[in-house]
C-alpha cells in the first residue's frame, strides 16, 4: 500500500521537472496550428482598399446562415473597394458560425479568411455579432496588389484566378 503511495509521489516528482503542457492563459496564449480556423477577418489590398466586393457569396455558402451582407454602390470618387460594388454592412454571428471555412472558399477576392483568433466569448448574444469594423484588418495591414484589370477606371474584380490572393 505504501509502495503505491510512493509510486504516485514519484510520478508527481517526475513531472515537476518536465515542461508543462498547460499554459498560463490568459497571460500566455497558445500558438495554434497554421491551418487553424478561428474568428474571421476581412482583408484589404496592399493599398488599403477593402477586398470585399459585397457579393454575398460567402453568405450563400454558409451552412449556418451566419453572414449578413448588404451591398451598395461604390462612390466612384472615393471607393471602398475596387469596382462598382462594396459591402455597406457585413456581419457575422459568431454564435451561429461553425468555423467550417466555406465562406473563405467561396470568396472570389480572398476578402474573408478564418484566422487564428479564438477568444470568442460574450456576455450577451448581441455582442456575438461581429460587424464590419470589428472584422476589418487595420488599413495598413493589407496585402497583395489589385490586379491590373481592376485598377482601371470602373473596374471590378475579375475571376478569382486572376487575383493575387
Amino acid at each position, binding site marked *: 500500500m505504501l509502495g503505491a503511495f510512493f509510486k504516485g509521489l514519484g510520478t508527481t516528482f517526475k513531472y515537476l521537472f518536465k515542461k508543462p503542457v498547460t499554459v498560463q492563459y490568459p497571460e500566455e496564449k497558445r500558438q495554434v496550428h497554421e491551418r487553424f480556423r478561428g474568428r474571421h477577418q476581412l482583408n484589404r489590398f496592399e493599398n488599403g482598399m477593402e477586398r470585399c*466586393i*459585397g*457579393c*454575398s*457569396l460567402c*453568405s*450563400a455558402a454558409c451552412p449556418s446562415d451566419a453572414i449578413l451582407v*448588404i*451591398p*451598395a*454602390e461604390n462612390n466612384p470618387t472615393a471607393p471602398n473597394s475596387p*469596382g*462598382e*460594388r462594396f459591402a455597406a454592412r457585413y456581419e457575422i454571428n459568431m454564435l451561429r458560425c461553425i468555423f467550417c471555412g466555406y465562406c473563405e472558399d467561396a470568396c*472570389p*477576392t480572398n476578402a474573408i479568411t478564418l484566422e487564428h483568433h479564438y477568444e470568442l466569448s460574450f456576455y450577451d448574444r448581441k455582442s456575438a455579432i461581429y460587424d464590419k469594423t470589428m472584422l476589418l484588418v487595420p488599413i495598413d495591414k493589407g496585402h497583395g496588389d489589385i490586379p491590373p*484589370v481592376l485598377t*482601371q*477606371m*470602373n*473596374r*471590378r*474584380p*475579375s*475571376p478569382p484566378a*486572376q487575383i493575387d490572393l
Partner: protein
Amino acid sequence: MPDVNLIIDGQAVSVPAGTNLVDAARTVEVAIPVFCYHPKLKPVGMCRMCLVEVYTARIDPATRQVVMGPDGLPQLALMMNKLQPACVTPVSEGMVVKTTTEKVKFAQRGVLEFLLTSHPLDCPVCDKGGECPLQNLTMQWGPEVSRFDYSDKVHFEKPIKLSDVIYLDRERCILCSRCVRFQDDIAGDEVLGFDNRGRSWEIISKSEPGFDSKFSGNTTDICPVGALTNADFRFRSRVWEVRSTPSICTHCSVGCNLSLDARHNSLMRVMPRENDDVNEIWLCDKGRMGMRFVESATRVTTPLVRQHGKLVAASWDEALTRIASNLSQIAAKGNGQVAGMMSDSASNEDLYAFRKLITDTFQSTSLDHRPGAVTDVAIDEAIITAGVGMGTSLLSLGKGTAVVVLAADVEEEAPLYVLRLRGIKNRGGVVHVVNSFATKLGTSASSDTRIKAGSEAAYANAFLKLVLEAQVASGFDRRVRNLDDVRNQLSKLLLDTLLEHAGVSRAQLQKVVDAYMAASNAIIVYGRTALQIGASVTQTMANAAMATGKCGKANNGLIALTTGANTFGAVSLGVRPGKDGAAANEFWARAEAGTLRGLLVVGLNPAANNPAAVEGLQTIAKHGFLAVQTMFMNETAELADVVLPQMAIAETDGTITNAERRVQRFRIAMAAPAAMHPTWQVCAQIAERATVATPASKNATAVLSNWNYAVTSDVTDEVAQNNPRYAGVTYTSLDLSINSWGRQANESVYYDGTSYTNTEGNGVQLKTVADDAGAALTVVYSPPVEFEPKGEFGLLMQTPVRAYNGGTWSIDSKLGSRQVAAHVLISSADASRWNISAGDAITVASPIGSSTLPAQIDKNIAAGHVLMPDVAGAPVHLALGAYTRVAIRRAE
C-alpha cells in the same frame, strides 16, 4: 393548322406546322439551349447556341425524288449537311432531330467559349448573377476551360446610363438583340439599336432622352445576361436572397401580376409575374419602378387628431372613437348627412366594408369613388352589361379580330394594353384607333382616325348608325330590347351631319365599321375622354356591341380603361351614389347648403387642384366632421379633424377587379412601417364604436350588420355570398394557376431572370349581364353631346391622362425625372395666331377662372384644340367636363 409529326431525341412529337424546333422540343421536355430566341419574340438565329442535328428525307438531286432505303422507308440525311439552328428551323413531317450528339455538344461548347471570350466574368458583382442564362448554360453546356488569353478581353467603360432607370454594361452584352427586338416588335418604341461592328459592336439608345420607352424595364428581364440592369434594383441584394410575394399592380386598370421581392422587410425589386390573360410576362416601368413610395419616410404612420387647431399624434383608439362618435351624432340627425368617398384603386374588401359602414351604420347613400371634380367620369353602366365576355384572352386573338379604340390614349391610361393590342395586330388582327389627338398606339395601328375635338359622341352615333344598317341583313341579337326606339331616334340624325361634325369621311368610318362587322372577335376599347363624356359614347358603343351580338361571349365586348385599378369593383360593390345620395362632385354644394356635415375620405385627395372641394371640405370641417385615411399628408388631410394612416398594397392583402373584370389576389409582402390596420378593419372598428340606431330599412339582414371578421378573406367570402356578381370568388378559386407559355421543369435554365412563373393564381373573371344566355339586353339611345367653342372662349380644352403624372406612386421613384410637368399643348396654328413660342407662359382662361402655365406646341394638334395634361400641379379645375371652352393668350 395541321399537326406535323417528327422525332426529337427518340421521342415522337406532334406540333402544329410552323412551330420551330426549340418550341417543339419544349413540349417533350427536351431543352435546346438558346440565347437569342425567346418564345415571345420572332426568332432571328443570331447566337447559334441552339444548333442541333436535323435529319430529313434524302432527295436525289437528279430525279428530285425521295430516296428510299432498303427497308422501304425514306433514307435520312443531315439537313444541308451541317448543324441547323433550331430556333429558326420549322418542323417538317418525318424530321428526326438529335440534340445531344457529340457534334452538337462540340458546337455548343464552341459557341459558349466564343461568347465568353469577350465576357468580363464579373458574376460576383452582377445583378443578374444567380438567375443568368449565360451562367446556367455555361454550367450545363459550356467548356470547362477557355483557351482564350484573359488579357485579350475587350473592355468597355462600366455601365453607361441608357436612361435614368436602365444601365448598360457593354462588356457583358452578348449581342443577342432580344432588347432591340422587344422594343421594335412588342413595345413599338424603336429606341434601341446596334452601333459599330466587330468587337466594338454595341447596343445604343437612339432616342432623346435616352431609352425613351415606358416598357424599358422588360428588356432587363429578357436580356439573357447582366448587360441591361435596372437602376431601381442595382446592387440592392442578390436575387436568391429575396422573398417573393405575389401581388397586383394598382397603378392602372390593367391589373398586372407582379411579385414584390423583399429582404429584411424592405422592398428590393418588383418583378413581373406571368399571367397570359393580363400582362403576359411584361410590366410597364410605372408598375416596376413605382413602388418605392411604400417605404417613403414621409408616410403617415400614426393617427392624428385636431387639438386647438393643430393635428397631433393620438392613439388608434382615440382617433377611431372620435370618428365613430362624431359621425354617429351627425348621422343621428337623419337625411344622410354623412358621406363617404374612397379611391377606386382600393381592394374589393375595403370597398365593401366602406360601403357597409356608410350605408348600414351611418345610414347614408352619399358615397362615391370619384374625387369630386367637375371633370369626374360618369359611372359606366354599359360595361356591366356589355364588357368583354367571360373567357376573353387577348393573347389568343389574331386573325379575324377587330379592335376599335375610341377616345382613349392607351399608353398613358393603361400602358400594358399597348403591348397586348399591338400583339393582336402582329398576329394578324386589326386595331383601329379613333381619337381627337395623336396617341402612341395610333402610330402602329391599322388605321388612326383623327376626329375633331369634342366629336366623340357624334362619331359613336355615326358608328352605331352604320353598324345597325349593316346588321339588318343578318338580323339582330334576339336578346336585344328597345332596338326600334334606338333606330327610330338614330334615323333623325343625319349621317352627313355627324360625319361633318366629327371631321371624318364616310370612307374612313366605313372602313372601321366594316372591320368591326366582319370580325369574328370584335372588341371596343374606350378611355378617359369617353368616360368623361359618358353614356353618349359608352352606351352608344355598347348598343353597337349588343345589337350585333358582339358581347356576352369570349373575346367580344367592351373594355373600359377605367380611372382606378378597381373601378369595376367600386361600382359593383356599391361605392357609388345610391338613391337620394349625392355624387362626389355634389358634396361641396351640399356642404355649403348644410345638408352634408360628416365626411370620411379614404385614399383620395379631393382638395388637390379643386378650389370648390377645398371650400366644401373647410365647411365640413368647421361645422361638422372630416376624417381622412391616407398614406401621405395632402391638401385634404391638412383640413381633416382626424387623419388615419393607410396601408399600402404591399402591406395588406385582398382582391381587386381589373378592367376586364378579372378578380385577382394580392398578398402581404412586408410589415407596415408602424401599427396600422387595413381599411376593412378600420371600418369594422368604427362601426363597433358607432352608436347610431339599428338600420331602419327592413331588409338589412343580420349578416349585413355583422362586423365579425378575423381575416381579410372573411370579407371576401361575405362579398361572394352577398353580391351575385362576385359569387364563387374566394381565395381558393383565385389561387388556381394555369401555366402559361408552356413552362417546363428545366426551362429556367435558359429563361431564367425573366418573369416569374405564376403559381399563385390567375384570378377569376366575373360575368357580365350579357354572359347570361337569357338576359335581356336593353339598348338605350343617348343623343350626342356637342361641345362647341363659343364667343370669347374660342378653343376646346381637354385634360388628357399622363402615365407619369407625378402622383403618389412617383414618390422616391427612379422615374422622378420622367414625370410630366404641368403644361398646355397648343397647335402650331394657334401658336402663331397668338404669337406664342414653345416654353412661353400662357394664360388659359375658362368660364370659371384662369391660370398661367408654360405652353408647348404640337404640330399634330388641330387648330382650336388645347390639351392640358392632368398631372400634379396642373390647374385642371378650370375644366368643366371632357371638353371645356377656353381662351388663351400670352401671359404678361
